[in-house]
């Protein structure tokens, strides 16, 4: 990068190239060999960061930064977003639809690589110019002066392309509404209709027992099935004690009536009054 025509780069750059180049190739191989799309995306992001370092080493300072911002920052995150949208667990199927397609593809890739390498090897580049002169007034300034003079038409076409891509993405992902949007009232009515909204009544409310398998009584005396656990309800293990309760009540009334007829010889006056009160109470309760 020092003279106008150099023959070799610095040792530091060579070291960087061999170390990071190896990592970049491994990352690229992992991209195509990993089964899950998320792992592929992460490996590709690593490869792109290494490429950004290579851009910086090659004197393309602006492109190096843009590579990190646009590729690893925006494009790879967009990829990850779509991977999450499509489903992370969706691993690639390993069944081959065309027999031996994978080996043929690998063979094709190998042949293609040999072709490219032979082409580059034939070029026999001995010296290179380096960007020292071109980057004299600053890399960004040099790029800007080129973009706005020689390549200004391509630059404007690029603007049109970006707008078209934005509109295209919006058109592609837009879904037409097929039915009228529901109003807030309709939605709230939908939520309430046909369901038991408040918490279910506890067993034993208004009842004379509070065991879980005994239905609570409604104010009019009928047992409510809602008060019993759903499992018990489905098994049919509800114990109905309303008849027992009525029998108990009847027995109580009977005893009270007996006492009224044969007052206790040990307690007179007050006792009689008390018995009468209790009898009245039981009568009221039975009503």
């Amino acid at each position, binding site marked *: *990068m020092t003279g106008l025509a150099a*023959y*070799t780069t610095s040792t530091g750059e*060579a070291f960087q*190239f061999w170390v990071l*180049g190896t990592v*970049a*190739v491994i990352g*690229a*191989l992992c*991209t*195509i060999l990993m089964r899950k*799309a998320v792992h*592929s*995306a992460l490996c*590709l992001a690593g*490869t*792109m960061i290494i490429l950004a370092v*290579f*851009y910086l080493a*090659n004197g393309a300072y602006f*492109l190096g930064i843009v*590579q990190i911002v*646009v*590729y690893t920052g*925006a*494009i790879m995150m*967009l*990829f990850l977003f*779509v991977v999450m*949208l*499509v489903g992370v667990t969706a691993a*690639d199927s390993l069944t081959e639809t065309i027999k031996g397609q*994978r080996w043929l*593809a690998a063979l*094709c*890739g*190998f042949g293609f*690589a040999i072709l*490219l*390498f032979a082409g*580059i090897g034939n*070029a026999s*580049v001995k010296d*290179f*110019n*380096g*960007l020292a*002169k071109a980057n004299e007034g600053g890399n960004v300034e*040099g*790029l800007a002066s*080129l973009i706005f003079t*020689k390549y200004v038409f*391509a630059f404007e076409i690029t603007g049109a392309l970006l707008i078209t*891509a*934005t509109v*295209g*993405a919006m058109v*592609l*992902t837009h879904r037409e509404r097929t039915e009228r949007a529901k109003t807030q009232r309709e939605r709230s009515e939908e939520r309430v209709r046909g369901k038991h909204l408040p918490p279910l009544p506890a067993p034993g409310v208004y009842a004379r027992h509070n065991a879980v398998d005994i239905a609570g009584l409604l104010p009019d005396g009928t047992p409510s099935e809602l008060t019993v656990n759903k499992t018990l309800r489905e098994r049919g293990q509800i114990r109905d004690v309303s008849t027992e309760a009525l029998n108990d009540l009847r027995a109580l009334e009977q005893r009270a009536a007996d006492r009224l007829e044969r007052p206790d010889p040990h307690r007179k006056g007050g006792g009689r009054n008390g018995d009468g009160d209790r009898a009245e109470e039981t009568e009221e309760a039975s009503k």
Partner: protein
Amino acid sequence: MNPVNYLYLAALLFTIGATGVLIRRNVIVVFMCIELMLNACNLAFVAFSRLHGNLDGQIIAFFTMVVAAAEVVVGLAIIVSLFRSRHSASVDDASLMKL
């Protein structure tokens, strides 16, 4: 080391990307492989820019990046709508133009 080695690396990355397009069936991974190929081309452009000593190669790489960004936006939108209609991200399932 001669900067031509960058060209070799770019060729290798491009080949890996092309092979990935051929052997993978997940649409998203295929798309990522295309991105890898574009990146390899960018590296080649930047290396050429250094070899020739002018910034034109970097300009081309810059335009490639812009086009790649636009391509990714539209391509991922297509993938999302494809997944919505077919519930699959495999390129084999998209063998018919219509459902």
